[in-house]
């Protein structure tokens, strides 16, 4: 059993774990909605594999919360209302208009930019978490980072190629970058206990992580000869503070439909 020290240490670890778990959970859900709709069959295979990995990462974080007495991990992932979630709003935004079963008008440019930005931000957090004062989280970070390596390679290829292809693809990518950056402040936020997280050496300070993000992404923009603004907002809300769009609740309702019919079922 890991030494948890003071109640405030535990409270802060729990807060951080909910952010990490809920981010991966809802983004994996959005990713899975692309199954059968991705631009080509190789992408269908790749994106569903990435989403499966990401759901596996969410399960690790929910598992750590279960070990800390927060409740059963199936409940944590399925039974919590949207208003209780700590994910960044960017992760819950739908892939486009329509529904995945009916007239999906999904936006591939938005998806590529969201996945690329998110994967880099996740990588930067994980590198910091490898030194976390909470050892089980540090171990999880090492494992997840190995899988994330392949996600980053994948999204970087899409990001670069769509921009370099010029024409409508480039135009749509540039628009998607603006849209993602308008929400990206939330992804970089560590929420109300941000200062405590850094003080307790659970993760580096927000501004340190943000600087590392800029340093990772800026050279990519440079090689693509497009300007990097790097100014991030909270257009649709602050998910770390419990602000969410209605779309989150819609997604959760769909995702948890089977769970709610029989919460005691063995999976």
């Amino acid at each position, binding site marked *: 059993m890991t030494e948890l020290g003071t109640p405030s240490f535990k409270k802060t670890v729990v807060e951080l774990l909910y952010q990490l778990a809920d981010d991966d959970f809802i983004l994996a859900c959005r990713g899975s909605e692309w199954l059968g709709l991705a631009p080509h069959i*190789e992408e269908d*295979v*790749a994106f569903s*594999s*990435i989403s*499966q*990995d*990401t*759901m*596996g*990462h969410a*399960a*690790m974080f929910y598992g750590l919360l279960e070990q800390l007495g927060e409740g059963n991990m199936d409940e944590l992932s399925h039974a919590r209302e949207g208003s209780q979630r700590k994910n960044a709003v960017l992760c819950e935004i739908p892939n486009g208009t329509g529904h995945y079963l009916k007239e999906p008008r999904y936006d591939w440019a938005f998806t590529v930019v969201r996945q690329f930005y998110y994967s880099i931000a996740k990588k930067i957090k994980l590198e910091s978490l490898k030194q976390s004062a909470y050892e089980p989280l540090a*171990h*999880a970070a*090492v*494992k*997840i*980072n*190995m*899988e994330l*390596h*392949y996600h980053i*390679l*994948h999204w970087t290829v899409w990001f670069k190629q769509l921009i370099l292809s010029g024409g409508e693809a480039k135009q749509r990518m540039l628009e998607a970058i603006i849209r993602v950056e308008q929400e990206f402040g939330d992804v970089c936020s560590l929420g109300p206990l941000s200062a405590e997280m850094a003080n307790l050496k659970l993760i580096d300070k927000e501004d340190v992580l943000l600087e590392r993000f800029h340093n990772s992404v800026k050279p990519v923009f440079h090689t693509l000869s497009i300007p990097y603004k790097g100014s991030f907002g909270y257009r649709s809300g602050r998910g770390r503070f419990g602000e969410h769009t209605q779309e989150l609740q819609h997604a959760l309702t769909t995702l948890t439909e089977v769970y709610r019919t029989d919460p005691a079922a063995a*999976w």
Partner: protein
Amino acid sequence: MTWHDGLNVEEKIRINQVLQSVKDPEIDSISILELGMVERAELQDGTLTLFLLPTFMGCPALDIIKTSILKAFTKVKEVKQMDVHFIYHPPWTSDRISEEGKLRLKEFGIAPPMKEAGTTGEWQAACPYCDSLYTTLDNLFGPTACRSILYCKSCKNPFEAMKPVSNWM
């Protein structure tokens, strides 16, 4: 350190034999031992506790593997109770696959992982059918989380390869 450090010779031989019979449900030529998934086995007063390392965390085969293990050990009279735990420290890395395991993968049409992948994600893999190195990567992601799809330009067969997973990643 090996998985059987805590066991005596007889226990080791017996447990080894059973673990060897538990195959990866998605690659049924290779055992979980050859894949390097078994980190530690402890036998105390008839209770066997196994610690396994998942290859990839989202792998849906984990529950099936656990069920296969429990089933396989029902035939072992020395084992009265059993616990199977999946742990991720240390992380599973592809260099844990044994030499025998690499042959079993090849037999199934899967190229074993290369020791090191370049930072670009490209790596050299020999075709499991004709051993040619004249191959290309078709998709980093394959039918399961741990596999990629490649193509052999010599014998013109598509094939799969285990993704390299290393500590430097």
